[in-house]
Every structure is written in C-alpha cells, then in structure tokens.
C-alpha cells in the first residue's frame, strides 16, 4: 500500500506571507494532483504533474514534482484570505487504474 505523507497538517498565517506544503512518499507515482477544498464543498483540482522535476505555476501558486516522482510541493506566494481551505495532494499509480492515494491534507488559514 502506497502512502503519501503531507505536512504540515495545519498552518495559520497572516495575509501576505509565503508558505510551502509538502507531500512525500517512499514510492513512485505516475502523476500527482493537488486539490483545494473549501468548507462544505468538494475538492477542486488545481494542477496535475506527471514528469519528474516538473514545475507548474498557477498565479501565486507554484507546484513542483520531485525528480524521482516520490514527492511534491506547493508554494503559495503572498497568501490571501481567499487561499484559506484544505489542500490535498493525491498520487496516481500506473498499475492501479485510476485510483488515487490521498495525503492527509493541510488545513490553511490566512488571516487578513
């Protein structure tokens, strides 16, 4: 069974600060997705990375897939209150069909 460890579990910061969320595994994933989930809503897909070393940017969010495809990070620059939510990483395995292994989630609160 593959595991994804996500850290930190909780993060409370002031508006304008930068932050990084990490997702680590001892196993290789074919792809890695990042989702953001707001209270009372379903997770919304932010990005998918599939190539080792890949970096993708989405406005103030930067996503990186590790060279060995075992880890990923999400960096937010100048966080805003609208970034508040639960961030989930999820890894897909080539031999597991379309099943995803989820990290435990990072609950982010950005205070104005």
């Amino acid at each position, binding site marked *: 069974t593959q595991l994804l460890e996500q850290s930190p579990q909780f993060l409370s910061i002031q508006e304008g600060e930068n932050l990084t969320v990490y997702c680590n595994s001892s196993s290789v994933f*074919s792809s890695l997705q990042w989702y953001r989930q707001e209270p009372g809503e379903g997770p919304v897909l932010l990005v998918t990375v599939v190539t080792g070393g890949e970096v993708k940017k989405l406005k103030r969010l930067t996503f990186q897939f590790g060279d060995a495809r075992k880890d990923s990070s999400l960096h937010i620059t100048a966080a805003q209150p609208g970034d508040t939510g639960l961030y989930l990483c999820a890894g897909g*395995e080539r031999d597991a069909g*379309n099943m995803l292994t989820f990290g*435990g989630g990072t609950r982010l609160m950005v205070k104005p």
Partner: protein
Amino acid sequence: DAMVIQNPRYQVTQFGKPVTLSCSQTLNHNVMYWYQQKSSQAPKLLFHYYDKDFNNEADTPDNFQSRRPNTSFCFLDIRSPGLGDAAMYLCATSQIRGANHEQFFGPGTRLTVL
C-alpha cells in the same frame, strides 16, 4: 459546462432509516467513485464503477451499496445509517487515459444522522 452534480447538498435522516444519495455527470467519464469524508480528513474511497463493473473497497461496510444504471448516474444507498455514518459524501469521475489520473469531484452531500 461539463460537471459533476450531487443531490441533495444536505441530507438529514434518522438512525436506521435508509437514505439514497445521487450523483450525475456530464463529462461522459467511464469511472465514477464514491468517497466518504469526515471533518478535515482526506476522502476515503468506498467503491467505484469502471463502466458497469463494480469495485468495492475491502473495508467498506456492507451497509453501503451502490448502483450505476447508466454512464451518467450513480447512487449511494445507506441501508441503515448509524451515527458514525454522518459525513460528507463525495462523488468523483475520471476517464482512464495514460498516466493522467485526474479525478473530478462534485460539491458533495453533507449527511446528518439524528
């Protein structure tokens, strides 16, 4: 817009009273999933359909059943809800293709058991 729709958004039921949650999709994806999510935790997969093939997770209680009458619709039946079944239930879809394992989630149904 192509999307995943869940109804109702909020469902209240009584202990032991059967309840059905519904999910529909306009993405024409061949895989549909049901997840259970408790407060601030990651979603937990209950089962999924690959086309009409049903796949149950080993630790999904027998109390949970599912139906997929066609490509667009999938239902979650909870035969005798207990207090521990109160949670957010998420439906998701995906299309099998290469290394991309993207799943697209609906807005969820919040189930309360009284």
